[in-house]
């Protein structure tokens, strides 16, 4: 297997970036009306950099869209708006609260996580704008259920994902064809791990919402998890109030993901720079494996369920 190399291979980040650019351009080339989902989170921030590399000096051949649960961290929402403005790209925001007003989303109780209801609002937006492809920042290493997800994933007229009816994907020949009403979900960073994302952020010097870095925050410990409390919403109203009898403590934490406030838990950390997070991500994987193993089947099953219903 020793051979003289005719070219040095691309570094792993260059390879991943080139693949992601290729996928975005395939979407642009094959789909008539795509949209890029942008939440202000770290994965979608990487996606915007990839889109810049793919399409500049032109404009992006798609608008950006955020499905807002109304329960997002202020810092993330502000960052989302700022970043879209800097790029000069169109940002569409559709909110779960509007779906609630329309009656298409009904919460079981007030505190219920709105994360899973995003699918309803997303499908409504797809219909409103006639999008034929949604580009998302999901990665295969996020959950075991995603390990077999396609890069171009097919959804039927009801936005449903049928695990038995997915197209084989060979070489780099992506098939994003869809009939009217059907929809493709494209995942350009499928092959990236959390580590790759952090290394890319470091290399590209990407700006992130502040809550990704270690900061002091009032939390309670609930069922072994760190739960942020008294979190101000964009409106200024406080959410995630502590339950009676819970003791609030100040901890140094950072977020690894920044979704809906009701279901994103931070980790204890003193990593206040991207460099430190890269090292922490590498070294803590050993102990985190314990946590990964705790991954209960219900959460994975529910991921499959959500995908079937049209969620990412």
């Amino acid at each position, binding site marked *: 297997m020793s051979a003289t190399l005719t070219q040095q291979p691309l*570094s792993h980040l260059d390879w991943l970036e080139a693949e992601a650019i290729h996928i975005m*351009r395939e979407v642009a080339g094959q789909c008539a009306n795509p949209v890029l989902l942008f939440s202000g989170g770290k994965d979608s921030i990487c996606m915007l950099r990839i889109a810049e590399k793919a399409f500049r*000096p032109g404009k992006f051949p798609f608008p950006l869209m955020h499905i807002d649960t109304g329960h997002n961290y202020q810092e993330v929402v502000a960052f989302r708006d700022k970043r879209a403005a800097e790029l000069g790209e169109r940002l569409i925001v559709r909110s779960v609260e509007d779906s609630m007003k329309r009656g298409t989303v009904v919460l079981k109780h007030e505190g219920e996580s709105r994360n899973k209801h995003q699918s309803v609002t997303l499908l409504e937006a797809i219909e409103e704008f006639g999008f034929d492809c949604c580009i998302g920042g999901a990665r295969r290493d996020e959950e075991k259920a995603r390990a077999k997800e396609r890069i171009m994933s097919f959804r039927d007229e009801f936005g449903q994902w049928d695990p*038995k009816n997915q197209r084989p994907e060979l070489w780099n*020949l992506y098939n994003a064809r869809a009939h009217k009403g059907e929809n493709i979900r494209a995942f350009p960073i*499928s*092959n990236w791990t959390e580590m790759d994302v952090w290394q890319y952020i470091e290399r590209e010097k990407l700006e992130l919402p502040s809550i990704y870095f270690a900061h002091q925050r009032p939390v309670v410990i609930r069922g072994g998890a760190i739960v942020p409390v008294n979190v101000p919403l964009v409106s200024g109203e406080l959410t995630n109030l502590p339950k009676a009898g819970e003791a609030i403590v100040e901890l140094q934490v950072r977020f690894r993901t920044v979704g809906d406030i009701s279901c994103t838990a931070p980790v204890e950390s003193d990593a206040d720079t991207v460099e430190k997070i890269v*090292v922490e991500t590498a070294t803590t994987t050993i102990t985190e494996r314990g946590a990964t193993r705790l991954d209960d089947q219900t959460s994975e099953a529910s991921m499959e369920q959500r995908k079937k219903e049209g969620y990412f």
Partner: protein
Amino acid sequence: MTTHIEDHGLLRFLTCGSVDDGKSTLIGRLLYDTKAILADTLSAIEKTSQKRGLGAVDLSLLTDGLQAEREQGITIDVAYRYFSTGTRKYIIADAPGHEQYTRNMVTAASTANLAIILVDARKGVLTQTKRHSTLAHLVGIPHLLVAINKMDLVDYDQAVYEKIKADYLEFAARQGIEDVRFIPLSALNGDMVVERGEALAWYDGPTLIQILEAAPAAHTEHAEPFRFPVQYVCRPQDSANPELHDYRGFMGQVESGAIAVGDAVTVLPSGLSTTVKAVQLGGRDIGSAITEQSVTLLLADEIDVSRGDMIVKTDEAPTPVKQISATVCWLAETPMDRARTYLIRHTTREVKAKLAAIDHRLDVNTQEKLPAEKLAMNDIAQVQFKLAHPLFADPYKANRSTGAFIIIDESNNNTVGAGMIL
């Protein structure tokens, strides 16, 4: 405080084996034991002292997503797994080993540059081993590694290993499989995976991870001609900005070869020639590009170029073909209909195609060529297609990017076949 870490890029490999050969255990072992290496490589502050690997972890838990499926009997998919040593990133394509799923293996193999073929030391070379090897070879994976697993169950006996190796080499020679290596393992105990262990002292070759770290990445071993299928044309037409007013950027990924400013190029199918004015990434000049880079090319002359065209170097242009001979794997549950027209997608180009002839079918278990009238799911056959428009193709053996195509059924848009041009 960024320390410089060597980066050997990325390797995609495939794992195949029969049920219970230890594939999940081996993948789990790799994912688990390399975490310590990654931490060591990236931890600029302190070396981690964790002992690599733990005797009593159930490694298959790391991949149990697949196991649950297997119980339900719906394993029809390829799963992708990731690990990194810090100096190299790996993508494992894990194709279920079950008999009828040729198509999964072909799918998984299409992007792999190395295949690990697992053999249970107690069982030796089986029909399945031969089938997996035949498919890996057919799909052009340049490096095969036969991992003889469960050595602990045969007392780590060198004679068992040598016997299996000899049997395999005899088979490989008949099939024309050249680049094949062997390694004895115990995935369960971790011997020769990441750690050498003590029990296989008679084996003086590299460990599995050393082989993976040193294996060539795709497109690095032979000089290949420059091939640049155009994916998308960028025309900002920004009248406010005179610099962008006439900007026409041809966007794509270098499928093979290299390109630099000043190179003479020809655009296919028009056949018009010009030179490269600029090579850009994200609107910035980078001067040149190599295989697998996604870039934007600007040309010196105004030539009409659209998606589906291919830019090549003038002195190494492929010959356009309107009839192709190819090895095809049928992927769909509905057999191929000889009366119908299908769509062939080759690079970014789509052409209508009709089956002209089936030369023969390949029995992947016996490696025999048999006459065939039809193509059903999991069949592999050598066929002829007539094309409505020319393709700019290379033989698959010479170029895995421009030698490959997929077949699409336009009625439902499904990908129904995979082809490799002869």
